[in-house]
């Protein structure tokens, strides 16, 4: 089953990214194909330059692990990146700058779509 999850709020300020990662990991472990679409301030979840304090979780690193080890797909709204000054070279490995056409494709082609409201 193809499952897509949209996140809109900034990581660390809110819990959406953490929840999305837990859902994604549980779904990947069951053999589902999972894509996370980062929209608005959520794009910072794919910023490799994020540096949380040592006792806190590293969200971009966790996303990168799921991409590399479990095949998670991470798409990022390109316009949202530009608005927030997030350069492509700062992205975690495997995350893809995309846009609303890709979100539309995810909605059209996924078997399930979830979103965390702003």
């Amino acid at each position, binding site marked *: *089953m193809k*499952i897509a999850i949209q996140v809109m709020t900034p990581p660390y300020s809110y*819990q*959406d990214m953490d*929840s999305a990662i*837990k*859902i994604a*990991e*549980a*779904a990947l*472990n*069951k053999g*589902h194909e999972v894509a996370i679409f980062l929209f608005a301030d959520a794009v910072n979840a794919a910023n490799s330059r994020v540096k949380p304090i040592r006792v806190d979780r590293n969200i971009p690193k966790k996303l990168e692990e799921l991409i590399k080890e479990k095949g998670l797909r991470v798409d990022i709204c390109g316009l949202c990146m530009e608005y927030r000054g997030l350069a492509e070279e700062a992205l975690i490995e495997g995350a893809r700058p995309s846009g609303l056409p890709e979100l539309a494709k995810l909605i059209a082609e996924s*078997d*399930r*779509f*979830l*979103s*965390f*409201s702003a």
Partner: protein
Amino acid sequence: MSLILIKYGPDHPAEGAKLSSAKEADCAVLIQNGVYWAACDALKDAKCPVYAIKDDFLARGYEEGQFDIELIDYDALVELIERNEGFVG
């Protein structure tokens, strides 16, 4: 059949509209601050089964069995996602 995802508590303007759209065949999941609904009488009027994410519930200082709500983990949430084609959230 839709999965209704509630991530804010009862005081939030959007969440009541989501819950009141529920039909019997749907299911609602309280996630993050949505678990505060578990302490709220309004939840008794929900027309569909309602679950709460156990980790989010316990992390906010509640105890298992404190309220009349079934606690679920993320594997169970994925099963609900599998079973429900529609989504409200």
